[in-house]
């Protein structure tokens, strides 16, 4: 099973859910796809035994061959090229690596060279979880290629949990795209509700079955989320109450199921419920 954990809003507890769930189940692979700011490592362990660099292509202009025709400058949709005093300047930071300038140059004066985009790292941890992290280099904009490479590491013999980037834009979509089910994490506040609506809208568009986990749940405020979920027929899988000690453990990078192991049963129940939903779906119900 491939599960993606996401949220419309940052800070609701995606990583908390991803990590604690991973620790509660067996045969688990955890992929950290929040490549701008991957944080699972603070909970799983920061020892990495493998690193693979990820590159993208950027143009390199042979100024000798260049005839200053400007076709490349005019073609580029991203303003990554400029012509100053008959020399073509390249701004690789904003280049989207489309390869267009190379194709369009009438005298083959443009070649492509590799530029480091990010990396994938394989983590070693005492929990026996197969853990891969994707990371985007600071200053780079394209998360999606890193996430695509990360997904290549998916182990088909394991249950995969993907911790996605918060929000509803392309990097989140890429992480969720071929998942069997998505867990939407939210908090019982107007912020949480507002962003849950966005995430749920995205799930409907992508046609991915999904359910909600309310983090920092409180009796007085859960209705904010419960009412919405009831209205939209979205399953609430679990409520993790606000417990100050959970927050403290989180701040120190300790998954709360370590100190509160009975919570593992709760996550097992969630998994079983999701499994049930998917089986029903497979049976054409």
């Amino acid at each position, binding site marked *: 099973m491939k599960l993606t954990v996401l949220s*419309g*809003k*940052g*800070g*609701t507890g995606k*990583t908390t859910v991803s990590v604690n769930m991973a620790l509660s189940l067996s045969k688990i692979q955890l992929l950290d796809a929040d490549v*701008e*700011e991957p*944080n699972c490592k*603070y909970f799983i362990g920061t020892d990495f035994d493998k690193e693979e660099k990820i590159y993208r292509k950027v143009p390199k202009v042979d100024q000798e061959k260049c005839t200053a025709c400007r076709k490349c400058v005019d*073609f580029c*949709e*991203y303003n990554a090229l400029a012509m100053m005093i008959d020399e073509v300047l390249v701004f690789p930071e904003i280049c*989207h*690596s*489309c*390869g*267009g300038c190379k*194709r*369009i140059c009438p005298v083959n004066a443009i070649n492509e060279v590799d530029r480091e985009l990010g990396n994938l790292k394989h983590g070693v941890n005492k929990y026996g979880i197969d853990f891969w992290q994707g990371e985007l280099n*600071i*200053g780079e*904009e394209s998360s*999606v290629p890193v996430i*695509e490479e990360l997904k290549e590491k998916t182990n088909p013999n394991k249950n995969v949990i993907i911790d996605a980037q*918060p*929000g*509803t*834009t*392309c990097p989140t*979509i890429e992480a969720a795209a071929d998942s069997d089910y998505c867990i939407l994490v939210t908090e*019982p*506040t*107007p*912020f949480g509700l*507002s*962003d849950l609506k*966005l995430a749920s*809208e*995205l799930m409907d*568009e992508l046609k991915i079955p999904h359910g909600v986990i309310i983090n*920092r749940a*409180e009796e*007085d*405020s859960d209705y*904010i989320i419960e009412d919405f979920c009831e209205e939209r027929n979205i399953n609430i899988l679990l409520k993790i109450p*606000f417990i*100050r000690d959970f*927050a*403290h453990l*989180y*701040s*120190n*990078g300790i998954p709360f199921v370590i100190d509160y192991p009975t919570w593992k049963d709760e996550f097992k129940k969630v998994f079983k419920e999701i499994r049930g939903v998917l089986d029903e779906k497979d049976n054409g119900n």
Partner: protein
Amino acid sequence: MKKITVISGKGGTGKTTVVANLAYLAKDLVLADCDVDAPNLHLLLEPKVNKSEIFKSHKIALKDNDKCINCGTCYDVCRFNAVEPISYNIDGYKCEGCGVCVAMCPEDALSLKLLETGNIYQSTTEFGPMIHAHLNVGADNSGKLISEVREKAVEIGNKQDKELILIDGSPGIGCPVISSITGVDLVLFVTEPSKSGFSDLKRVAKVIKHFNIPALAVINKYDINEGISEEIEKYLIEEKIELVGKISFSSDVVDSLRNAKLIVQDDQENRISKELANIWHGIQNRINYN
């Protein structure tokens, strides 16, 4: 007109809550919500929308099926897997509007089209005008929308003779954050004492360091982990970022939040309200504003 941007790196540190409460303390200002992916400021400030404009920035390739001969050239040249095999339909989410397929199509069956990607709103709040925006689900952010939000904020600030623009910045560390902070008088970091929060603070601070903008920091919920709070304070000193205040964790703030209220408005005697008031004084001193 002074401009302040509030950023955090990590989501959920309390950035928007701080912005809203500062707005109350500042009393009369222009607000700009540059967190356009998941805007939240409007939930606390209840703006009345005066004007709404459609925003277009994202281009994608559009295929004329009548002209298409299914040669698959577009599929071959696309670097973004945005052309589906066999059908050669364009995946609007993956297409980056680069124009390569348009240029290479032998039948001229493709063109680039500017899409509606979201809306920009000009609104009024209790504390002054507010510019905010919303991206359509799946649409990607760019520095451009944020620039537009900021430009409109400056425009309306000039028109209405305001002296302060407070910007709720974008989370993360990419181009949207940079667009949120260029040319401002002050950056205010709102962070939390957790390993993740500290890590993200360091990442975003590194990204914006070379812009040389004066910076202040607030540690929110500092008493959740005083050990990490201290580590953050040491880091701030090393980086020459002044710590302008620490806010305690309190369920009172959560209660206010739940009811979409501002704690500084509702309960001025509360410890949190006093901490926020101190932070506001610190900010005023730093930018010579009163």
